[in-house]
């Protein structure tokens, strides 16, 4: 059966850094109701090496994360295995690195995407900023349509 993982990560105790987590939590009920058994939702503070094994169990993985890059609202881009970030700190393990590790250790390469949602404030407190909330809602709408399209097109797999 074709299975999709939505994986939000970040620290919800650091304002907009929790965008990926909040998105995953908001998506959870919708995904379970709409596509029972076909969509899993998970969250964590950050990506780490064991995620290589986790993503190996899915055909598609969507990583959701806060972004401080110069983007408008959000971006949705494919993730390819990359050696470019192999010199890293533990706080900066990238989806591309996890995909690379999955490929090398488990010889599997799910189709992976990164949903990068624009954040603004990163101080030590809970709750998203107003602008981040707006970006969250835009990305939720987009993501629901995207997942519906993918899973309806693969319902016989």
């Amino acid at each position, binding site marked *: 059966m074709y299975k999709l993982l939505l994986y939000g*990560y*970040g*620290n*919800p*105790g*650091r304002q907009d*850094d929790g965008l990926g*987590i909040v998105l995953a939590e908001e998506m959870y009920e919708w995904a379970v109701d709409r596509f029972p058994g076909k969509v899993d939702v998970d*969250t*964590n*503070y*950050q*990506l*780490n*090496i*064991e995620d*290589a*094994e*986790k993503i190996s169990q899915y055909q598609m993985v969507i990583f959701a*994360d*806060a*972004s*401080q890059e110069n983007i408008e609202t959000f971006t949705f881009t494919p993730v390819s295995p990359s*050696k*470019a970030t*192999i*010199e*890293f*700190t*533990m*706080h*900066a*393990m990238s989806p591309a690195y996890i995909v*690379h*590790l999955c490929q*090398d*250790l*488990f010889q599997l390469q799910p189709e992976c995407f990164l949903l990068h949602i624009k*954040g603004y404030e*990163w101080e*030590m*407190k*809970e709750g998203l900023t107003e602008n981040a909330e707006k970006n969250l809602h835009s990305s939720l709408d987009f993501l629901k349509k995207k997942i519906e399209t993918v899973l309806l097109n693969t319902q016989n797999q």
Partner: protein
Amino acid sequence: MSKKITIEPVTRVEGHGKVTIFMDDKNNVTQSRLHIVEFRGFERFVQGRPYWEAPVLVQRLCGICPVSHHLAAAKALDVIVGAGNGDGLTPVGEKMRRLMHYGQFFQSHVLHFFHLSSPDFLFGIDGDPLQRNIIGVAKANKDLAVQGVMMRKFGQEIIRLTAGKKIHGTGAIPGGINKNLTIAERDELLKGPDPLNADKMVEWSQAALEFFKNYHKANRPQVDGFAAFPSNHLSLVRKDGALDIYHGVLRAVDAEGNRILDDVDYHEYDKYIEEEVRTWSYMKFPYLKHLGKENGWYRVGPLARLNTCDFIPTPLAQKEFEEFKAYTNGKPNNMTLHYHWARLIEILHSAEVIRDLLNDPDLQSDDLVVKGKKQYEGVGVIEAPRGTLFHHYKIDENDLITMANLIVSTTHNNEPMNRAVNFTANEYMGGQQNITEPMMNAVEVAIRAYDPCLSCATHALGQMPLEMTLIGSDEQILDYKIKD
């Protein structure tokens, strides 16, 4: 003309830091410093909040070691709710916390060894930098890399099942815990499908130790001599002298093994430990008051714990401990790279403790919380993976926190890390005209041995390249390199 080399950040340590090495005209190292960017705002942040929120709030500090802060805060608040001074919980309360803590220890140490350090042991300090990472490990020794991943996963599952969830877990509360371990949860960890079960974790922990010992056997001069220097060592030990990472008394020994802090009550830590501020670093320099700044600094963490304790209360780890102690004829081990050896023994010990705890029927008890007469001040100390962690809170009559003081593990190791950097810089950089990648990495290897958590920044804030700056005595930049 003197030169200043700056390495920023130090790669493969948790958070980021900056190393500055001062050199004279003849490329001799004159001084080196490890600058730490440590987040200290938390202590002010919790003031005015209800005390029972602290064990969850403190997890905002870091995505690397949230369980350590969660448990240290809970232990301090046990005192405040009148649940004793760290040993007054119900059996299930203490044992669930221990399971959470040993699970965290296991996964944290595993991550450090397999992910951060094993590349150096597989390919050497002067190996190809493009190979010296876990992807290189996967290509050279796939089994080792896969074991590292699955051991991490096992530890994370323990945290999830004991803390309630992976992010902002709530398992430990003042006076106890809010859940026990169900039979189904226990069996998931104890008898899970291969390889995710406790027996396999013990077996793989032994294999990882053998991997290190084989490397050590073949590279003794380098492993033993690399950044080795005498120091004091401090940790918690159980009252009978056993290694105990959850509760005990404070013990410190000097480089010869003489007791310089003799099993004192950690609630009185401020009688014994002082912190020095130096203008060039954000992180303080702790020392034992009675020995003074010059002689009172000490190491914490795996090496210190095995130097202070008398024995390890699990059979396989005890056997390894005896071999470890015999290597230095029973004296304290002051070799920096032996932190890895000690860490691997602690991985094995953690796996054994986890297996024992999972077989303990107390974990299914419903007697979760103890409360007694309210107090207005509490201190909680645990051994975090990186070393001794202190949490100290005071509250007012409205249950609001009025004071918080944290001394984190990496802070204790500030002076030793600086000494390790200085030693390595002299050894590898002195007299050289060009700063090569192996030389840079040697400095980083010395710091990584201490497994520092330099900044509790988020991943979004932690993305920084490796930056090197060479500055002359006239403050002019002589050279600049950046490694993405």
